[in-house]
């Protein structure tokens, strides 16, 4: 009898310690089943589970502050520029690229436009193909009918997005609308700053209300595409 109590106590303590990860659903199948079995028989752990779930819900309910990363990134870039030498520049890189790396940050930022198709190919190939298949035969995010002047990105936003949210996202990514939305909800966006298209795309894609965002420029670095 004592032995069974001891076993139960040990199991209770071990399972109790796993409850936070049972709640956030990161336990493996075996551990989850172990917790399930114990919960079925232990009212203390069931109560604790309810308390911990409530705490987690409350933590999630607390408002989080979103900050604009561009200004912070620029300060990081300035710190990197102030460093005497870069940590490790591959000797296998072309000489032109190595010398370009030694140039100030702004110089390579300007050069990032040269890598846009890499991002397009890598992060959007599936989207592009799917959109090609699914969208009807009028102007879409992917067709190339008369690009508006300055267009560097095409994007689709959630239909529920408000004007204020849209403007906030565009401000953050330093973009402006030059055309749209089309029948398919596609906006043509132009850059408002020296921020690279790649950086603007990364900023757009952070927002859940941005359903699609791809660059529209051709790849000036042939050979880099996957």
């Amino acid at each position: 009898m004592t032995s069974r109590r001891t076993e139960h106590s040990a199991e209770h303590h071990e399972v109790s310690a796993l409850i936070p990860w049972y709640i956030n659903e990161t336990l493996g199948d075996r551990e989850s089943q172990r917790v399930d079995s114990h919960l079925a028989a232990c009212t203390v752990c069931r109560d604790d589970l309810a308390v911990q779930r409530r705490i987690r819900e409350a933590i999630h309910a607390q408002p989080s502050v979103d900050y604009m990363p561009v200004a912070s990134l620029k300060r990081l870039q300035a710190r990197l520029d102030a460093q005497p030498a870069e940590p490790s520049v591959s000797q296998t890189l072309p000489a032109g690229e190595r010398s370009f790396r030694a140039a100030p940050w702004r110089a390579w930022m300007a050069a990032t436009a040269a890598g846009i198709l890499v991002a397009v190919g890598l992060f959007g190939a599936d989207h592009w193909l799917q959109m090609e298949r699914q969208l009807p035969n009028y102007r879409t995010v992917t067709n190339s009918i008369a690009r508006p002047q300055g267009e560097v990105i095409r994007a689709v936003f959630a239909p529920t997005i408000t004007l204020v949210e849209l403007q906030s996202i565009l401000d953050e990514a330093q973009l402006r609308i030059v055309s749209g939305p089309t029948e398919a909800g596609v906006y043509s966006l132009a850059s408002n700053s020296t921020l690279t298209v790649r950086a603007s795309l990364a900023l757009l894609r952070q927002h859940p209300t941005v359903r699609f965002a791809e660059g529209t420029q051709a790849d000036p670095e042939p050979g880099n595409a996957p």
Partner: protein
Amino acid sequence: MTLPAKNSPKERDSALLVAIGTGDRRALEELYLSYHRRLARFLSRFTSRYENIEEIINDTFMVVWQNAKDFRNASQVSTWIIGIAYRTALKSFRRQKNHAGARSLEDYPEQTVDPTSDAEVNDWLKRGMSQLPIEQRLTLELAYHMGHSLEEIAAITDCPVGTVKARMFHAREKLRQYLPTLSGGASELPVRIG
């Protein structure tokens, strides 16, 4: 930089880190932008000063920049980066005398409203969290806010799994003391089980 044609976020992070290890600042920029929001949201739970948040994030990415070439895929890139941020934040918070820059009790004035309301529970939770030792609070946030597994938190905090469990246990116990409505009888609350 050449990335796999169909890359998951994990593969993309790994490819970016490899590129950063070769001195590719464009890759650093992309990685920075993809992590900034997550890190800033996490850190904003500990300090209300954006200059502190920015300093921690930028210090983190200076370490990423300087050490990317030594990354050996012993963990996921995200775990590695958040681990660096964790240690940087820990140093930063400890450096500030009595967490002067961190959220303090003064941010959460006493409440006298219905103690069973969500708002009241949230206020008590904030007060309770602010009283936890920083390691316990970070552990709780990593599990409940960031959704990390036990093993990931052990890797992030560079501690044995047992230590993570112990920190979480103590955090839970202390929070119970600060949350009388929760510790006094969970069954009376409109909690959702299952």
